[in-house]
């Protein structure tokens, strides 16, 4: 996949700011998209018109187990989140629900990528190409089962 970057240079972005509590009653994906990142970035939707990759720091998606968080991002057009680390439930939800790719990157890659950079991600080679800067980074490979669930298109399509 290929796309431009929205960069949030901070750690511990929690699911309450990704999709605030009052909207937990909503379950239509398009309605959830309207409120994505409402707790921290009022410009998210204008940015997401041209970008589909979020790059961020440690422990992305911490807090509540609300699957509404990856759904809201995915329904806003986000295809991948590149983070130094993920909170476990957000990671699991993203994979098992097949909403977006949660990709772990190292500090050097994190600091190299800038807002609006265009990236090309090749999960089969565990490579991230920065087209804008003409740089090549490696991503942390998905664990075996995670890779298989992603390839299948989510936990319900995966055959153990």
């Amino acid at each position, binding site marked *: 996949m290929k796309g431009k970057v929205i960069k949030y240079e901070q750690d*511990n972005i929690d699911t309450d*700011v990704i999709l605030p509590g009052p909207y937990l009653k909503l379950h239509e994906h398009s309605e959830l998209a309207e409120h994505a990142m409402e707790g921290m970035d009022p410009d998210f939707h204008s940015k997401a018109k041209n970008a589909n990759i979020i790059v961020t720091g440690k422990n992305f998606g911490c807090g509540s187990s609300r699957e509404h968080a990856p759904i809201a991002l995915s329904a806003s057009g986000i295809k991948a989140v590149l983070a130094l680390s993920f909170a476990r439930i957000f990671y699991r939800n993203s994979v098992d629900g097949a909403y977006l790719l949660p990709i772990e990157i190292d500090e050097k890659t994190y600091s190299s990528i800038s807002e609006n950079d265009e990236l090309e991600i090749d999960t089969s080679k565990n490579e991230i190409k920065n087209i804008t800067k003409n740089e090549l980074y490696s991503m942390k490979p998905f664990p075996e089962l995670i890779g298989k669930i992603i390839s299948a298109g989510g936990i*319900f399509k995966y055959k153990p």
Partner: protein
Amino acid sequence: MNITEKILARASGKDKLEPDEVIFANVDKIMLHDVSGPGVIKTFEKLEKDGVIKVDKLFDPSMIWVTEDHFVPSVDKISAENIVKLSNFTNKFGIKKHFKYGMGQYGICHTMSHEEGLVSPGELYVGGDSHTNTTGALGAFACGLGHTDVAYAMLYGKLWFKVPETLYFKIHGKLPENVMAKDLILRIIGDITTEGAAGKAMQFGGDGISDMSVESRLTLTNMTTEAGAKNGIIEPDQKVFDYISERGVTKYDAVYDDEDAQYEKTFEYEASELEPVVAKPFSPQNVSVVRETGSIDIDKSYIGSCTGAKYEDLLAAAKILKGRKVKVRTEVLPATISIYKKATENGLTQIFIDAGAVVGPPTCGACCGAQMGVLAKDEVCVSTTNRNFPGRMGHLESKAYLASPLVAAASAVTGKLTDPRDL
């Protein structure tokens, strides 16, 4: 193996497990509520629409229970319709344990799990809510998930898990008067940070834990979620067996650490050295001793949630509020009807009302900023809940200080953040 590894080994039919192994394990109990429940319904609808699978029956409806807690009382048409959908769903699939708002016992899912004896020692329990970790204080593997995973477990009775490393927290001695389990777990989160236990098990033990009531232990495991833990767990003892037997559970298969159980790391705490603390905005790791936090004027005191509205929590708040008056808006919401009833029978409700507080129905509402008492811009709240992220309890520019019920009640009386020892 330690208790977490042994439960996962039993549930996956293995003799031995090591941390980081990925397994499919059989699930014993499943919980969903009025947020994750409609998510499960939507997942099943989508699977059918996409031609993946048509769900006609569940693996075993008797292992599932359903609560109504986040949006009760219904806040608007959408949340009211979610409750109707949930009832239609439980009727259709024969889920008998559906605890409905306004129909006898109901309440916050995690508190229901132990108040109603829904999970037993040694079981593998998953729930569609992050604080499912709470129930690990009964000696179960208890782990929170999103609604897709819950739907999968409901359909197939099993789920994948990565065996976690275990962090062991050995607690020595007794908590001093005016210091509660909430102070201990906040101190631990302050020390290890909100990602200090990411994906790991947090196990508590030592004579300090043996000395603690079951409800206090539940406060510890509840907030393991805030440290990023996969599960929180405590080896069961006679106190747990008595607690669940009072709730009608007499058959169980308790699991304990082997003598050569391994932990990734052990942390030791001297309970007697602890003081009342708060987590300042905007993170549960922002921990500060109350007496060193400075003068903080507050607008509200909130005593509620799965973390801080068990019977023991209400008793602690009542001890402070008895014969006193609140200076700020104070809301007390017992976590379940059974706790509400006990509080009323024992005069606590009267104490709260006499002090000027309002006593409301069990709900997660204000804790997650959804309804029933959200904060206005710039308002400051001392709260017995578990999270204080930006906007968590209302407006993005409101502030929540997480504290024990004693600190919340003492602060209600003075209108400022207050150490109960200074009243």
